[in-house]
């Protein structure tokens, strides 16, 4: 009995060593058909009808111009996009040809070999020259383009004009003054949050870090090194941690809040200020505070300066496994081009990514002015590496902020730990 069992064990080990987990065999397709069905994935929205209308118009125009081509648009939920895209990369036959994606996800997708390099197609397209350079950079990995920026979301400071004038508080001109004003407002109105901005609101607190000259990470060649523990970053984290305190936004309430919750408090009239996006304008306009608010760019450390905002937005790209590459690029250029970006702005309030279209929008709609000013003042982005998805999923930065807010760690300790975790992710651990 002993020998067969040992033999079995050896066999099992050999089997283990000789087999390997499943791996998809490359995505790149060489086929380039000019007819058939072009599959498109776009994100579904809470209020989707206007988006669908614009997209349907583009589809109609495209189908009219290309005989024998039908465009099949599917709306996928943002929450489960990671699973959807992974499945698409692993099995090209179930993948779309063109897809909308969040620009922070791009590096991970490219690392997974999911999107096609369209650098040459873009250099041959005249409209591409007018993309805002910082936004065009969010479609690039290692110098190659993997999409067109479709729209961008900018965040700025929303505040209650009625409360500011009632308590005779000046509109803040620096980040420090924002925190001071928030403290003063909460003192006068103890039921309200001075500045509703939560511990899990990464894109709300990163401008504090950037404004102080800090950053998430620095890059040299293709190696990223965490910089969240630098002196400048710590100054920003320190200032933001003052927001997450009893006298501005109590940690009990605010620690867990992400971007949506932070803005919801303002919409519900429970906060004197918040950091909100241009995509929140409609909700605020329809709320009870609609007549008593104003928006200014989030100020920087010096009076008159603007804190660098996060250049979050969505891109359109072509999947690497597409069998209709030419058609896919054509459709992407149509939907991502100037005409349809303007139509998307009119329908959904999405900020366009072409500088000339932005100028047009700023002129026709003054409510967009603070957001476009923020955009023009310069934006920043997350590290362009697949490791960012890991860092994001491990909630490294929110955890850091929450530890400080809860008094579980000092700014030094928490930033040092976050830096270690980020460096682990950067080095592929």
């Amino acid at each position, binding site marked *: 009995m002993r020998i067969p069992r040992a033999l079995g064990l050896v066999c099992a080990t050999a089997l283990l060593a000789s087999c390997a*987990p499943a*791996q998809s065999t*490359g995505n790149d397709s060489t086929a380039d058909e000019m007819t058939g069905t072009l599959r498109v994935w776009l994100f579904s929205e809470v209020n989707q009808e206007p988006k669908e209308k614009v997209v349907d118009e583009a589809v109609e125009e495209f189908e009219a111009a290309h005989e024998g081509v039908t465009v099949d648009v599917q709306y996928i939920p943002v929450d489960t996009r*990671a699973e959807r895209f992974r499945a698409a990369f692993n099995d090209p036959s179930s993948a779309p040809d063109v897809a909308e994606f969040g620009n922070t996800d791009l590096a*991970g997708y490219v690392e997974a070999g999911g999107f096609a390099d369209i650098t040459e197609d873009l250099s041959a397209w005249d409209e591409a020259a007018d993309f805002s350079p910082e936004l065009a950079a969010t479609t690039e990995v290692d110098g190659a383009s993997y999409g067109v920026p479709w729209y961008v979301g900018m965040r700025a400071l929303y505040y209650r004009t009625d409360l500011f004038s009632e308590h005779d508080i000046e509109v803040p001109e620096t980040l420090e003054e924002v925190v001071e004003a928030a403290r003063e407002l909460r003192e006068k109105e103890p039921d309200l949050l001075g500045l509703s901005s939560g511990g899990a609101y990464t894109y709300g607190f990163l401008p504090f870090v950037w404004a102080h000259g800090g950053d998430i990470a620095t890059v040299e060649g293709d190696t990223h090194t965490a910089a969240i523990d630098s002196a400048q970053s710590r100054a920003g984290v320190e200032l933001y941690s003052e927001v997450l305190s009893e006298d501005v936004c109590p940690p009990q309430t605010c620690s867990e809040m992400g971007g949506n919750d932070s803005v919801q408090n303002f919409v519900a009239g429970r906060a004197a200020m918040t950091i909100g996006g241009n995509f929140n304008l409609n909700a605020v306009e329809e709320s009870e505070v609609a007549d008593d608010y104003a928006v200014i760019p989030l100020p920087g450390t010096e009076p008159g300066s603007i804190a660098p905002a996060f250049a979050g937005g969505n891109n359109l790209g072509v999947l690497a496994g597409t069998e209709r590459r030419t058609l896919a690029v054509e459709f992407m250029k149509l939907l991502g081009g100037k005409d349809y970006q303007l139509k998307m702005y009119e329908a959904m309030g999405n900020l366009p990514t072409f500088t000339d279209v932005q100028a047009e929008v700023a002129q026709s709609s003054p409510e967009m002015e603070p957001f476009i000013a923020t955009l023009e003042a310069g934006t920043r982005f997350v590290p362009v590496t697949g490791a960012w998805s890991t860092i994001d999923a*491990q909630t490294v930065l929110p955890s*850091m902020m929450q530890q400080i807010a809860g008094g579980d760690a000092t700014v030094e300790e928490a930033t040092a730990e976050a830096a270690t975790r980020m460096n682990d992710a950067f080095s592929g651990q």
Partner: protein
Amino acid sequence: MGRPAAATRPGRRRGRFEHWFYLSPALVVLAALLVYPLYQLVLVSLYDYRQAQVSGAQPLRFIGFDNYATLLGDPRFWGVLGNTVVFAAACVVGTLLVGGALAVLATRLRPWVRTVLFLTALGAWATPAVTGSAVWLFLFDPTLGLVNQVLVGVGLEGFAGHSWTYEKWSAFGLVGAEVIWCSFPFVMVTLYAGITSIPEEVVEAARLDGASTLRIAHSIMLPMLRPVLAIVTIQSIIWDFKIFTQIYIMTGGGGISGQNMVLNVYGYQQAFAASQYGLGSAIGVITSLLLLAITLVYLRALRRNGEVL
């Protein structure tokens, strides 16, 4: 084997394969649904296997036990493991106590009251974990939740806007209460069935011999219930050790700065959210091994007491 060879030889030869033949359908199903996934889990845990490797953009790399070494060297993992053990133990004890107490109570209730109790308990049991968790969250919402409003209503002003999920142990307590709420009915029903199956005569005989109620419970009922107790205990350990849904939903994926993270949620976060399938699989393997070990130790302890399942 000690039997006379001549009489058993033909039968033995047939018997040697026959039982495998009868077992084969079950074995095929088990192999397909259990052995193969487990094999894959172990296999993946030995590789550097991330999204780039899955979709073929980067070559596969066999790294042996590096994933395990990374885990065991990470203080975060030990913290999560500690959380899991303490939380699961508390849930198991709580479930058994509540379930057991209600089972005893049920034997003394009038039939219609008992029926009502069972129906209510079955309602909790039948509620999907996701729904139950969401409803509990609504009840305990800081500003709009019924619980805080009632507490403030009876004069406890301190509960106005009180967040039940902010403190680590308060959050664990809330989730634990929900877990007990949805898993005690199984314990209650099983134990109730166990208690009612104890022959009346045995208890009556003990009573005639002058045994007190406590003595009857301790020396007659408990030993006879031990097999049933063993089953519900092991079941509860396995369920509560693997808890996922309640923690994931009620603490938003592991609580503030991950303070309420348990093994299963941690494994999910690493494997699926962070696309580190190798590392996530290693967590899965460790969870399975721990559960196996706990169950084996428990079964051995039972056997030493002379009980066989």
